[in-house]
């Protein structure tokens, strides 16, 4: 809401400085968003008189002037304006002045060999209007003011305040409401409401409402025999300060009353109407071309104002293009109605149409201000355009009943945290227009439809008293030992994240939404936005990998040689969201080096190593995990896998990304990836700090190596598990350390070597003990078709 200081002072009697006013605005919830003074740019210009005017020696269309601007010596000015002449008074910019309308700074210059100092200015050059046919001519009595700043002379020194009005404060969408708030906050006093004089005679117009829900009240009157024209300077200045362009007197009056009192009105040219006006529901498919020259197709939920021929106004939102006032208008019907806020909001949302009127009606205008609003507008029409006003026709009843709220002044301290004396609270509320009776039953004013409960009253008191004066009060500190405030899942996620970073992975945050094309290889997305910002950010990701692959590709394109990215975030599946860690490794695993030679690429086992380390950090029982295939179609079918707890509980999938997936996303070369399904990891049950009793074994562990010849397609993991299970008491570890395939082991065969760790419990192992264990290992392996290598 923009308004000039002088406009504010038309409603507010105050000696407060501009700074006091603007600081108070922010303090009471009308935040100062901007402050400009149009006079600042015009301050260097002076009222000046042309004391001599003669022809330019070298140019027919130029004159040579001597200009007195109050300085010691008159200035010599070359001037091209046709209206420049001796004794005229105008506006002079001395050398060094910046000309806002032409965007340059005046310098002494030679024009056709004659020196010229400064300039007599046109309205356009000062951005005071469009006129550039000649220089500004001030009245001759302005000669007495020669030498004074033009900004002062023309009383342009009127700062424009831009205050942000909160969505619940419709009453402050007019200058008077802002003045009322300031007065309540101690900045001056609110002047009495001025309505102007209206003499009414003759029957009011034929208006009615057939839609009491959407338009509970429709008031109107006519003015006949008027002459439309331009509005006066004072009104134009105020409209301009609010950012409104003056159009004609009738339009300007409606805009002015809306901005002055928050009361939207509509003016119809009676000559363009057929019969009376009715507020009714629109017909399905009814069309209306609004003042913005756009055609809207309406439906039966919307309220329109119509005559016998059709709709001329989307009620409370925007008038129609064909019945508005023009310069030729001589008879008008002024509409002052009350529209239901909720139906205005719905209609506006459906039509995607915003307007100053909608903003006010949907927030709820003052239902008790219909007569005053109509009188103020009528008085202005009569004053500026002449004519005769009819009586007011009042159709329907505006909802002026306000709830009575039981209040206890102690509630201010209980909720607002500040003690304000009851008498002071009463004064604050009354200054804001509330009625407070002796039992603290409070009735809000009709313009405060946002007030519903005692909490709102506390807010009013605290807001006016000042939030700054609410004393800081420490929260009660709970007694006892601090309890952990993070859940086991949160702790696991934190550890997993830090473990990934410690392993040299860089954490990224990528968009939760991706394109259809990116989602497709990952099973596609179930959740596709109805109103995406673009096709690239449309589908909720079913996997973290597309975003990570895209990020890897961007890094590769920027020249990164080794890319190690991870992200902790959600996948969005049909039923729920799953917290997940995704990682992508691309480019070089090891750069070429003096020690290890050529660079190496990432392989599936690099992904597996990251997965196991991160799972371990997250507290997953990694020793119990089983290797499975079926990591998904986006992986290399032969170089990928899953790690599961039992056949169905998948904790992670990893492997080499399918070349067609990386290629489609523009990532060159081999890349590996993994996803760790954090919410599948069993949560460790909370237990006390005590661990199971343990002492390191007194006896030393021994190792024995076994090499087996097995079928080439036997998974090594199966053999290791068989070996480890051969003697559950003695064997504490089995680790595969060699894999060999070649002619020496036979076609379709491979050799696997396993190091077995034996931990004696009661006594050192004898040769017999060792032989017995060895036999068990060999026998267990034999069940898988493994033969001990000779």
């Amino acid at each position, binding site marked *: 809401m923009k308004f000039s200081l002088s406009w504010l002072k038309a409603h507010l009697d105050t000696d407060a400085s501009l700074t006091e006013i603007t600081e108070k605005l922010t*303090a009471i*919830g009308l935040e100062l968003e901007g402050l400009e003074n149009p006079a600042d740019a015009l301050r260097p210009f002076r009222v000046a008189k042309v004391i001599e005017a003669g022809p330019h020696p070298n140019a027919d269309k130029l004159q040579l002037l001597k200009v007195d601007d109050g300085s010691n010596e008159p200035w010599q000015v070359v001037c091209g304006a046709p209206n420049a002449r001796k004794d005229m008074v105008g506006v002079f910019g001395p050398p060094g002045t910046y000309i806002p309308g032409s965007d340059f700074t005046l310098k002494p210059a030679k024009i056709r060999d004659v020196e010229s100092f400064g300039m007599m200015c046109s309205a356009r050059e000062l951005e005071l209007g469009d006129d550039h046919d000649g220089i500004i001519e001030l009245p001759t009595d302005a000669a007495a003011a020669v030498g004074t700043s033009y900004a002062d002379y023309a009383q342009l020194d009127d700062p424009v305040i831009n205050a942000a009005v*909160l969505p619940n404060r419709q009453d402050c969408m007019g200058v008077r409401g802002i003045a009322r708030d300031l007065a309540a906050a101690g900045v001056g006093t609110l002047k009495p409401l001025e309505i102007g004089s209206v003499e009414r005679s003759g029957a009011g117009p034929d208006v009615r409402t057939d839609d009491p829900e959407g338009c509970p009240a429709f008031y109107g009157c006519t003015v006949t025999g008027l002459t439309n024209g331009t509005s006066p300077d004072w009104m134009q200045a105020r409209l301009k300060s609010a950012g409104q362009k003056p159009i004609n007197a009738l339009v300007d009056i409606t805009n002015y009353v809306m901005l002055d009192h928050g009361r939207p009105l509509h003016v119809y040219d009676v000559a363009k109407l057929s019969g009376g006006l009715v507020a009714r529901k629109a017909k399905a498919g009814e069309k209306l071309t609004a003042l913005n020259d756009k055609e809207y197709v309406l439906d039966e939920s919307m309220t329109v104002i119509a005559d016998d021929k059709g709709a001329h106004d989307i009620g409370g939102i925007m008038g129609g293009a064909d019945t508005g006032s023009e310069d030729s208008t001589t008879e008008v019907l002024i509409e002052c109605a009350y529209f239901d806020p909720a139906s205005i909001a719905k209609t506006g949302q459906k039509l995607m149409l915003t307007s100053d009127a909608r903003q006010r009606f*949907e927030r709820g205008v003052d239902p008790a201000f219909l007569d005053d609003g109509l009188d103020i507008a009528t008085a202005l029409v009569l004053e500026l355009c002449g004519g005769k006003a009819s009586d007011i026709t009042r159709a329907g009843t505006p909802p002026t009943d306000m709830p009575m709220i039981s209040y206890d002044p102690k509630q201010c301290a209980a909720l607002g*945290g500040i003690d304000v004396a009851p008498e002071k609270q009463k004064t604050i509320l009354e200054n804001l227009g509330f009625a407070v009776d002796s039992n603290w039953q409070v009735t809000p004013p009709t313009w405060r439809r946002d007030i519903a409960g005692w909490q709102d009253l506390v807010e009013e008191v605290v*807001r006016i008293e000042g939030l700054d004066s609410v004393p800081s009060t420490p929260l009660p500190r709970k007694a006892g030992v601090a309890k952990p*405030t993070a859940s086991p899942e949160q702790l696991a996620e934190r550890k997993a994240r830090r473990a990934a*970073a410690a392993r040299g992975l860089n954490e990224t945050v990528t968009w939760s939404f991706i394109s259809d094309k990116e989602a497709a290889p990952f099973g596609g997305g179930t*959740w596709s936005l*109805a109103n995406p910002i673009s096709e690239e950010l449309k589908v909720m990701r079913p996997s973290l990998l597309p975003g990570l692959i895209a990020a890897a590709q961007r890094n590769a394109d920027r020249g990164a040689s080794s890319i190690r990215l991870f992200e902790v975030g959600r996948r969005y599946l049909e039923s729920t969201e799953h917290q997940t860690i995704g990682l992508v490794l691309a480019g070089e695993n090891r750069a070429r080096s003096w020690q290890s030679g050529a660079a190496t690429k990432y392989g599936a086992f690099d992904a597996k190593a990251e997965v196991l380390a991160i799972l371990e950090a997250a507290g997953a029982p990694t020793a119990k995990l089983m290797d499975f295939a079926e990591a998904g179609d986006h992986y290399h079918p032969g170089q990928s896998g899953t790690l599961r707890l039992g056949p169905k509980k998948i904790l992670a999938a990893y492997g080499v990304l399918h070349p067609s997936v990386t290629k489609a996303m523009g990532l060159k070369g081999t890349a590996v990836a993994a996803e760790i399904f954090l919410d599948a990891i069993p949560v460790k049950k909370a237990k006390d700090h005590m661990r199971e009793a343990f002492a390191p074994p007194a006896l030393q562990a021994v190792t024995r190596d076994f090499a087996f010849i097995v079928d080439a397609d036997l998974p090594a993991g199966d053999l290791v598990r068989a070996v480890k299970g051969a003697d559950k008491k003695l064997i504490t570890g089995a680790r595969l350390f060699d894999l060999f395939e070649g002619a020496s082991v036979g076609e379709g065969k491979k050799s696997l070597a396993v190091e077995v760790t034996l931990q004696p419990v009661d006594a050192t192992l004898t040769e017999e003990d060792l032989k017995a264990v060895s036999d068990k290992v060999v026998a267990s392996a034999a069940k898988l078709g493994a033969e001990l290598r000779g």
Partner: protein
Amino acid sequence: MSDIEAIKGRYLEQIESASDGDALEAIRVAALGKKGEISLLLKTLGKMTPEERQSEGPKINGARQAVADAIAARKDSIETEALNARLATEKLDMTLPPPFAPKGSIHPVSQVMDELAEIFADLGFSVATGPEIEDDWHNFTALNIPETHPARAMHDTFYFPQTDDQGMPKLLRTHTSPVQIRTMMDVAKQTDGAGAPIYIIAPGRTYRSDSDATHTPMFHQVEGLVIDKGIHMGHLKWTLETFVRAFFERDDIELRLRPSYFPFTEPSAEVDVGFSVKKGRRIIGGDSRSNEGGWMEILGSGMVHPNVIRNCGLDPDVWQGFAFGCGIDRLAMLKYGMDDLRAFFDGDLRWMEHYGFDALDVPTLSGGVGA
């Protein structure tokens, strides 16, 4: 007599000039071997008179000992020389680089979330979460934003074609406030409507259909919620002051509360934080009234609206509290001096190397994020 001394002297000379282990062994055999010269002399002691033995014994034994010691000493020194000679051939250029170890990093958003969790844990808050794909009721209606409320239009909501059981389209949460609703409802359910104190923060992803230099369609917010008995705006003010000062690790940070409007709080306040300018960059804290200093808005807050408490199944005449919401990305930018929000979501390794955090930079009270 001079005989034994001469023998000893001769051997010691030989030992001194022996150049390797073999030569030394030959000397040992010649002097101290079974038939060695000194060993044979020792055997002569048995045939001597006690007087002779008394005078010759120590001399011969002394000579034996001296030669044995000299051999051991010489052996040591030969081995040391040999080792030194070998090490000298094993010299490496120690200016060569060691094997490369990749350096990982933590994203600033995660780091700030961990900092917030730590600061608020110190105040007794725990961390709550909720779904990002929300329904209309949790995101709007329960928060006192009915369908026709003008505030809805300001939320730039992303919608899905799928609907909830009320027939309303599902949506992406526009703020973390639905977590307030879910937490209060859970408590109401667990306590059968009796209620219990709630102290939570809820950090997470939020979405609005807005994209320009300072807005991204996805961003991070943290919600704070306190529901207890006798909680008022003074507590809200203290909590925010404590949090902001702990987060930026400065005592000289001023907060300015401005009356504001949110449908889900009453009274409501927007919170500005004072900044000063150092080397052309805005620093939170310091003299906000200095020439270049000023205020910037960092969060919205207020006392939870009684309708919201009621909507969650708790009694607003018993339970009262405050809520606040704050942009995490913006907090990170203000604290760590980033100026481009879009870079947060690009995954540029160069950016991460500069703005990321070490894995072991875990925020701790002792490290300076405590309240």
